[in-house]
C-alpha cells in the first residue's frame, strides 16, 4: 500500500526487520571499501588517535601542565580520543551518507535509515582495532585491568546510538539544507572541546558541570574512561547521558521518517 505522506508517519519496524540483511551488506560495503587499495590498511585506525594523543600530550601535558589525576596523561588522552575518533567519524560519515548515495536513493527503494546507520556502524570495526591498542598501551603504563573493563561495550553502544541519533537527524537535514555539510567540521571541532576528551571532567568548575552534562558525550566518555582505568563509575552522569541519547534517537528517527518521503525528490 502506497499512500501520500499526509496519511501520517509510520515507523514500520517490521519493514526494517524484513530488510535487515541489507543493513548488514551496506555496513560490510562501507568497511570493505575503506580498506581497499590502502597501503597501511587497519593501521590508520590506530595512527589517527595515536598521533592526536602525542600532540595533545606535548602541548597540554608537557607545556601547559594539564594533569589527569593518577592516570598517565597519554593513556588518558588516547582512551578519550579513541572514542572521540569513532564518534566524530561516525557523525561525519552518517551526515554525508545520504548525499553520497544519491544514486541509490533515486533508483531503488529500501528503508533509507539504513544508509546513515551503515555509515555509523562501519566505524565499529575501527573502534575494535583501536581498542586492542588501548589495552596494549594500558599494559605499557601498568594499568591493572579491573572488572569494570567488561562495561566497555556498554559505552561503545551508547556512543554508537548517540552518533546514530545525530547522524540520522543531520543527514535528513542535509538533504534539504546543503550548507549543513560545511558547518559540520566546525560543529565537530567545537564538540571536541565541549566534551572532557583531552581534559578531565574534574577540572570543570562545578557550577558549569550541569551545562556540560547536557552534552551526552560527556557522560559517555567519562564512563568509558572510568571503565578502562578502573576508576569509580559516575552512574548519575551516565544515566543522564543515556537518557538524553535515547531521547535524541527517538526524535531523530521520527524526523527522519517524516523527511524520507521527499528525499528522492529533493536530493
Amino acid at each position, binding site marked *: *500500500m502506497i499512500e501520500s505522506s499526509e496519511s501520517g508517519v509510520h515507523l514500520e519496524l517490521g519493514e526494517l526487520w524484513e530488510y535487515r540483511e541489507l543493513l548488514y551488506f551496506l555496513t560490510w560495503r562501507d568497511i570493505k571499501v575503506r580498506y581497499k587499495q590502502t597501503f597501511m590498511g587497519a593501521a590508520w585506525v590506530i595512527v589517527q588517535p595515536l598521533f592526536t594523543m602525542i600532540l595533545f600530550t606535548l602541548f597540554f601535558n608537557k607545556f601547559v601542565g594539564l594533569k589527569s589525576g593518577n592516570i598517565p596523561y597519554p593513556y588518558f588522552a588516547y582512551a578519550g580520543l579513541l572514542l572521540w575518533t569513532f564518534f566524530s567519524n561516525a557523525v561525519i560519515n552518517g551526515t554525508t551518507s545520504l548525499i553520497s548515495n544519491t544514486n541509490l536513493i533515486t*533508483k531503488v527503494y529500501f528503508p533509507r535509515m539504513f544508509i546513515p546507520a551503515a555509515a555509523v556502524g562501519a566505524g565499529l570495526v575501527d573502534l575494535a582495532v583501536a581498542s586492542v591498542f588501548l589495552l596494549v598501551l594500558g599494559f605499557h603504563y601498568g594499568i591493572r585491568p579491573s572488572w569494570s573493563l567488561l562495561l566497555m561495550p556498554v559505552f561503545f553502544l551508547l556512543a554508537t546510538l548517540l552518533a546514530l541519533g545525530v547522524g540520522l537527524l543531520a543527514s535528513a537535514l542535509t538533504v534539504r539544507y546543503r550548507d549543513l555539510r560545511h558547518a559540520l567540521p566546525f560543529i565537530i571541532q567545537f564538540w571536541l572541546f565541549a566534551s572532557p576528551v583531552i581534559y578531565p571532567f574534574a577540572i570543570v568548575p562545578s557550577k558549569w558541570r550541569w551545562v556540560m552534562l547536557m552534552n551526552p558525550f560527556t557522560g559517555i566518555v567519562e564512563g568509558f574512561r572510568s571503565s578502562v582505568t578502573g576508576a569509580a563509575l559516575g552512574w548519575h552522569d551516565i544515566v543522564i547521558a543515556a537518557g538524553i541519547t535515547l531521547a535524541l534517537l527517538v526524535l531523530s528517527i521520527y524526523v527522519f521518517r517524516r523527511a524520507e518521503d521527499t528525499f528522492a525528490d529533493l536530493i
Partner: protein
Amino acid sequence: MKPIVLIERLSKRYSIGGLHPGYMTFREMVADTLFAPFRALRGMDNPTYQTLWALKNINLKIEEGELVGIIGRNGAGKSTLLKILSRITKPTTGRVALYGRVGSLLEVGTGFHPDLTGRENIFLNGAILGMHRAEIQRKFNQIVAFSEIEQFIETPVKWYSSGMYVRLAFSVAAHLEPEILLMDEVLAVGDAAFQQKCLDKMHEIRQQGRTIFFVSHNMAAVTRLCKRAILLDEGAIISDGPPEQVVNQYLSATWRIGAQRDWPDASKSPGNQVVRLRRARIRNEAGETIAAVDIRHPVGIEITYEALKSGHAFTPVLDVHDDEGVHLFSTHDTASEWQRKPRASGSYTSTAWIPGNLLSEGNFLVDVSFISFSPATALHAQERNVVAFQTVDNQQEGSARGDFIGPIPGVVRPLLMWTTEVSPRS
C-alpha cells in the same frame, strides 16, 4: 483474474523553479522564513516556487500476469509513475495497492561499487534490489553463468568493460523474482546476443504468470511484447488498450498524421490547375482504413485525386520513409493501363500495394506527389507526410522472424527463398 496493482486517484506534484529546484541552503531557508510575513502582507504566495503536476488523477487496474507497456513523450509522467510504484517517491494524493513483491529495473547496476569485485557486487546489488542472502547464494552460479563473466568474478568492477559491467548488472536484476516487475528500457543494453538472452528472460518471467510494467520509447518492442499499452500525456492517461491502437494514437498525436487524410476544400488541397489530391489513406485488402498492419499482410496506399484538365498524362508518386527519416523507396505507376495515357478530367483512385513480409517492423510515413514525364517533366504537387502507418509483428508463423524473438535490424525484412544443398562427407 484478480487485480495485482490498483491505482486510485494518484497525483504527484513537484516544485520547480527557485535557485535550486529541489533543495535549498540553510541561508535561503532563513531568508525565506524571515520574508514570509512580508510576502503575505503584499498578498504574494511564495513567488520562487512553482509547481508542476507530473501525474494527474491516475486510475488503473492491472491484473495478475499482464505485461503492460507505458508510452508517452519525455516528461509525460512515465518515470514518475514507476518511481511511485517502486516506492522511491511518495504520491502527493491518492493511493496504490500492490498485492505482491515489487522489483524495479529503473536502471541496471544500482549500487554497484567500483572498488568491489564482481562477486561482492552481486551480493551487494542483490541485497539492494531486495533479495535475501540465502536467495543470492542459491542463484549465484546462475547469475554468473548468465552474465558470461566467470573468469573476472574476482576482479573489481572498475576494471570491467562497460559491456561486462552492464551484463553483470542485468544478470543480478534478471534473477530477482518479484510478482510485479517494473522495467525502464533496460533492454537497450549489450550486444545482440545478450539482448536476445534478456528477451528470453522476459518471456520466461511472463510465462511464470508475473506482472510486468514496461516503459519504452521503442514502439515496435511495445507492440511486440505487450498485450496492453497505456499512453500518458502531461501526467494523465490518454489511452489504454491494445498496443497497436495505443501506439498508433501516440504516433498520430506526435506526428499529427493519421491513417487517412481528406481535403474537403478543393482550393486548399495540394496540387495545381492540372491535378489536386483529395484523399489519402492506408487500407487493407478488405478495403478498411487501418493504421496498424500485420507485417505478413499486404498494405495498400490509396490516393484519390481529381484531374482538372483533360489531356494531361501524369502519374502519382509515393515516397515511403521510416520514423528515423530513412527513405525506403519511391514508387510510381509504371505498369498499368494509365501509364503515359492522357487522362480525361474526373476523379481517380489509385492504390499501390506493398506486399506482406517486405517492410520491417516500425512506423512509416508516406509522401504523395504528381509528376508528368511528357511532353516535359513537371511536378504538379508534392505533399510530405500525408499518411502514416505501422507494421506490427505479433510473432506468429509465416513471417521472416522465424524462431528469433529479439529486435531484427534493417529497414526491410523480406521473406526470402532459401536453398541449401548438402554434399555428404566422403
